[in-house]
């Protein structure tokens, strides 16, 4: 089992004729993701790696019953793409695009929520249910089917943790990169709830970083609602205050959002925090 995506997910790739969209559409298809179409206004009828291109998301949904979308359009057009997908009836929207203005995300998120859809990202690597489906830009070869759920604000650091899990024989049910911006869609609380309810998940790795207080709130949620073992890694203990560490959301402002506060919050509710990413598999195994 998995959360959010599986073999039945019917994916549309928004911005499929662009360099990134085309490249990653082929990668996803090669992995076995069920891509039913792509969009690029004015290019209907073309094929990208044998995937049919449509003018609008509504057309793809009408023809193919697509239910999931992944967005590769440039940042100035990302808000429009997210809203187009929601308006066409897509239920899960994954926005890979980096550098989307925050107020665009605020507006799109509000619209998507009202349409009853879910958003992952922007500025995220997407998600994968190993052996079933990959939506995004994840390096599929490091993942294995299994029962550990992974939630992360980061890209390569997620891969580092997954790599360690796979090496220790711990496959993944689903791994989700929620994105590194200050405002993004699904976050720890919603994903923890999904993993807790997923019979195919028996443990959860959570990879956080500096900025905001979502980790602190996740710790409270775990204390009250999560029975499965969770292990955590928090990046950015050496980050100086007021400096943005790559991700737009990774910034310690006015002394809050530090790694130390986040680590303390998890430790206070009995969730073990790894000192280095390679300790995650051991911490999960000892509690399973």
């Amino acid at each position, binding site marked *: 089992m998995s959360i959010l995506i599986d073999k039945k997910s019917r994916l549309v790739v928004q911005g499929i004729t662009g360099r990134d969209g085309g490249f990653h559409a082929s990668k996803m298809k090669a992995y076995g993701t069920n891509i039913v179409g792509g969009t690029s206004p004015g290019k209907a009828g073309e094929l990208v790696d044998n995937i049919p291109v449509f003018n609008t998301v509504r057309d793809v949904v009408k023809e193919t019953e697509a239910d999931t979308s992944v967005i590769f359009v440039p940042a100035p057009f990302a808000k429009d793409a997210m809203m187009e997908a929601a308006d066409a009836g897509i239920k899960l929207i994954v926005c890979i695009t980096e550098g989307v203005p925050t*107020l665009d995300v*605020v507006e799109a998120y509000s619209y998507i929520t009202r349409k009853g859809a879910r958003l992952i990202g922007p500025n995220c690597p997407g998600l994968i249910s190993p052996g079933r489906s990959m939506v995004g830009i994840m390096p599929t070869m490091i993942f294995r089917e299994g029962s550990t759920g992974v939630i992360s604000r*980061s890209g390569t650091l997620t*891969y*580092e943790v997954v790599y360690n899990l796979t090496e220790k024989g711990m496959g993944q049910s689903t791994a989700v990169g929620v994105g590194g911006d200050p405002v993004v869609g699904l976050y720890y609380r919603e994903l923890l709830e999904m993993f807790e309810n997923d019979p195919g998940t028996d443990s959860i790795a959570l990879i956080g970083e500096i900025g905001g207080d979502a980790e602190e709130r996740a710790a409270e949620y775990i204390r009250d609602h999560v029975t499965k073992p969770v292990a955590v890694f928090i*990046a950015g203990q050496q980050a100086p205050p007021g400096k943005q560490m790559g991700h737009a959301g990774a910034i310690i402002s006015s*002394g*809050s959002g530090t790694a130390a506060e986040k680590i303390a919050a998890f430790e206070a509710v009995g969730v073990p925090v790894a000192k280095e*990413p390679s300790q995650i598999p051991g911490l999960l195994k000892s509690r399973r």
Partner: protein
Amino acid sequence: MKIHEYQAKEMFANYGLPVDKSTVCRTVEDAVKAYNQLDSQRVIVKAQVHTGGRGKAGGVKLANDEIELRRHAAAILGMDIKGFTVDRILIGEAVNIDKEYYVSYVIDRSSKSTILMLSKEGGMDIEEVARTTPEMIYKFVIDPSIGVPDYLAREAAFRLFDDISLVRQAAVIFQKLYKLFVETDASLAEINPLVLTKEGAIMAIDAKMTFDDNALYRHPKIAALNEPTEEEKKEQSAKSKGFSYVHLGGEIGCMVNGAGLAMATMDMIKLYGGNPANFLDIGGSSNPTKVIEAMKLLLSDRNVRVVLINIFGGITRCDDVASGLLEAFRQIKTEIPIVIRLTGTNEKEGRALLQGTQFHVAETMGEATEKAVALTR
């Protein structure tokens, strides 16, 4: 991106928000000229710098006459406040303050919305108020599809004022400030304090705005106000090459692909007893040109004694990364020892390519960090 108080006040005025009368000056003579043009005998002299705590640092002074004005202007111009040299001061009419309030719009991560924050505890450090007396701060979540309608602005204003004529004045201010916030893609629009004068008027006597860097492309006039520090210039030049760079001051230079992994690498260096010189995320691909540029950046830091390269080969395979590194280091001449840790797709092939070269090759992050720290000793 930050701007100065006087620039924020200009924006406020353009949006019809009431602000105190003031003029920005670069010299004492300009300040005297500005003083003589104001109606008020008493004026306030304020340093214009991109940092808080101006008052505590002595950068805000009241002047009762021209002699005091000259003295304060001369003292504040050229003053150092937290590493910023004051080259501009704002000369403003002193206002007869009855009460001070706090008002701001800010992006709230948890509600994924803009929120309006208000407090009767104006003029103070708002983070301090939030820590000690959070019940003194009122928050309103703004639905982006309706913004701040009259009823909401009134409801908010009633938290600060009882008198309906003051409520009406404040409500309009909240609406105009929201319009400014949204139309300029701000990440913060703050009035601290918003004051009620003894004459019964409400006005902003300070103004602070910061803007979303991701949205500056659609606000060229705001982008033109950017005044980066030397350190920020280095960071921006790195950004234009596709990197994120932050200087930290230790002796181990790091080059990593991905922001999260780059932060984790810094943390590991500290954990193993070393000090990271920087945060450097070179992004997804690691082609030779990028590595060369990144190495130049690292080696421009004189404190760097060892370089640690930590690459996770995902879509870019490790053997391609290794060839890229070899290619890059054919062009870079350096005596500084380099530790490389490659993991991910085709890692064995990648590491094999690096065997027998000048590089110290490691398999795990732990091993790489240990080697790098040992090499600094």
